[in-house]
């Protein structure tokens, strides 16, 4: 649920209309001017249908310099961003050899493991020397090292499930697992704002897919009742199985899932649950065990828990934690396990070391300190932004905070001006978000110190004033009015 001033909605629609009109005009003239050039297709069909690449050519390419920025160092709290320039209005960008040191507000570096760590890095280098950079083999052939088995047991113990299985890529974990769990004749009910990997996996499975309103357990119940009563389309036979897929933290909203209510609805109607904890594992919860710990849900109530190692653990890859029978089935049927190269051993060692730090098994309390630090940092940053009058989405304790921009012109304005002042932010536009709801997404890390956050806040406040995104009244006036009353 976003709240926006009515005038902003009108101006955003008008801006998109104007951009669309100019794009169409340019396309029209381009078609006239190119009418005489011979087509180089030689009888083959064009790759894009006439209309399909309109958005990319006429809207995205104009602000291309705000996306895909190359970096030249580890994504720590401060990192080096490579400068790029363009001679033809952003159609092509050229890298220069200069870099600028910027505050990193965009990486998913929730616990600060992205840069060299005093416990993890020596062990990772050791494993690189011992096992080399790649196993050059599939898990079932020769790619199953001691590290992989150790990590699977460690992940299962950390999450609180009987067994776990690893994959080399987080996206693939969703898109290759969902087709092995359910097929034609089954029903997948997924949240409307689920990540593309889940949508891809659901489409690839061949099951019927239905969507329920974001984070709305009442609507989920309605959809479940309607579908169970109706059965499969056309034959009306009962569904073979029903899986409900939700995420722990939604990466574009920063919101937590209403997990207890959704689990109770699923239990009532005997549907399986699949929880994607990509952004929440390791980042929230008292001991970092994710959204289940934070909301008090027993992991035994969720059938399949998925997560990735890219965000809080500073590595790559993903995992699935579930009962022994499900993991056994996955190990024998999932193509990402049987045919894909296993995770790189140094990456596995990084996750093992990171989890040991979080659990405190490295002999220090750095893990607990990091978890407390990220919670404090997120709450401080979010409350300060809200006090300044920005529209910030997301729940308390969530390290992801999108700042709403709405208007398409404010996306490049915000992004470029922040970069000029040495703060690197990630801006997200259509089609990753709905058309009108463009936003700048801030990800807070445990490695941000208080001074870093204050500098970030100052820059964002100045840029916010320049760009005009402080949609809510500043709360200082209320506080000052209250103080005046107290004095009188």
């Amino acid at each position, binding site marked *: *649920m*976003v*709240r*926006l*001033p*009515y*005038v902003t*909605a*009108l101006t955003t*629609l*008008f801006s*998109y*209309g104007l951009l669309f009109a100019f794009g169409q005009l340019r396309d029209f003239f381009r078609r006239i001017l190119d009418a005489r050039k011979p087509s180089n297709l030689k009888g083959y069909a064009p790759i*894009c*249908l006439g*209309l*399909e*690449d*309109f*958005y*990319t050519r006429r809207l995205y390419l104009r602000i291309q310099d705000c996306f895909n920025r190359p970096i030249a160092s580890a994504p720590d709290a401060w990192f080096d961003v490579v400068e790029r320039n363009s001679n033809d209005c952003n159609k092509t960008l050229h890298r220069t050899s200069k870099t600028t040191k910027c505050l990193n507000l965009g990486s998913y570096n929730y616990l600060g493991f992205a840069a060299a760590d005093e416990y993890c890095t020596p062990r990772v280098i050791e494993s690189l020397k011992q096992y080399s950079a790649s196993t050059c083999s599939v898990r079932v052939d020769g790619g199953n090292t001691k590290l992989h088995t150790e990590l699977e047991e460690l992940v299962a113990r950390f999450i609180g499930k009987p067994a776990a299985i690893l994959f080399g890529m987080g996206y693939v974990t969703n898109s290759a697992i969902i087709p092995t769990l359910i097929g034609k004749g089954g029903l997948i009910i997924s949240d*409307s*704002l689920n990540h*593309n990997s889940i*949508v*891809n996996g659901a*489409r690839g499975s061949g099951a019927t897919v239905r*969507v*329920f*309103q*974001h984070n709305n357990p009442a*609507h989920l119940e309605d959809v479940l009742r309607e579908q169970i009563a109706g059965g499969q389309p056309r034959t009306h036979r009962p569904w073979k199985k029903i899986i409900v897929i939700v995420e722990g933290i939604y990466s574009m909203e920063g919101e937590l899932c209403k997990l207890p209510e959704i689990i109770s609805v699923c239990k009532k109607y005997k549907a399986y649950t699949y929880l994607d904890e990509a952004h929440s594992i390791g980042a929230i919860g008292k001991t970092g065990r994710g959204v289940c710990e934070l909301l008090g849900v027993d992991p035994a109530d969720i059938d399949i828990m998925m997560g990735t190692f890219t965000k809080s653990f500073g590595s790559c890859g993903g995992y699935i934690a579930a009962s022994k029978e499900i993991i056994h089935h996955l190990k024998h049927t999932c193509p990402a396990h049987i045919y894909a190269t296993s995770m790189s051993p140094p990456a596995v060692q990084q996750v093992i070391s990171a989890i040991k730090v979080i659990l405190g098994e490295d002999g220090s309390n750095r893990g607990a300190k990091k978890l407390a630090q990220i919670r404090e940092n997120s709450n401080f940053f979010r409350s300060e932004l809200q006090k300044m009058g920005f529209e910030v989405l997301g729940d308390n304790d969530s390290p992801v905070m999108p700042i709403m921009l709405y208007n398409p012109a404010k996306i490049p304005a915000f992004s470029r001006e922040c970069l000029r002042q040495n703060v690197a932010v990630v801006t997200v536009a*259509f*089609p990753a978000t*709905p*058309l*009108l*709801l463009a936003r700048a997404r801030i990800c807070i890390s445990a490695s941000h110190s208080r001074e870093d956050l204050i500098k970030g806040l100052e820059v964002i406040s100045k840029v916010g004033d320049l760009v005009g995104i402080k949609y809510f*009244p500043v709360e200082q006036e209320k506080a000052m009015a209250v103080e005046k009353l107290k004095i009188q």
Partner: protein
Amino acid sequence: MGRRGTSYYVEAAPPVDVNKNTEWFMYPGVWTTYILLLFFAWLLVLSVSGCSPGAAWTVVNLAHFAITYHFFHWKKGTPFAADDQGIYNRLTWWEQIDNGQQLTRNRKFLTVVPVVLYLMASHLTDYEQPMLFLNTVAVLVLVVAKLPNMHKVRIFGINADI
């Protein structure tokens, strides 16, 4: 916040429309923007050409006909490479909105707008001949194209395939 309990803010719950080409039409402010665009187009035509108000409405009506026919009823598919595997490639925008449901509020509004434009243009030009004929053709084509019976119909195979 507004005074006396009114608020200048609108709340927008993101609608459950998986088609990104049409879900922007479900947000608040779309109808008002459409009407304001038509009104400002009329003012623009009046100020640039200095013709009578009726002639300006006729110009707006005909331009509206050309633009909405082209984008709502002629162009098919989506203007961006959606990951929907091309399920909308044969559908025009009009056939895509509201997930193909007929007679929703959005569709009724969009059907009424050309009729209102026609009434204003023909009244203010006193039903004189060349304008009346053009305006009538415009409104007939647009309203027929928006009827529920014309869903996915391609007359004589015009605009039938990709």
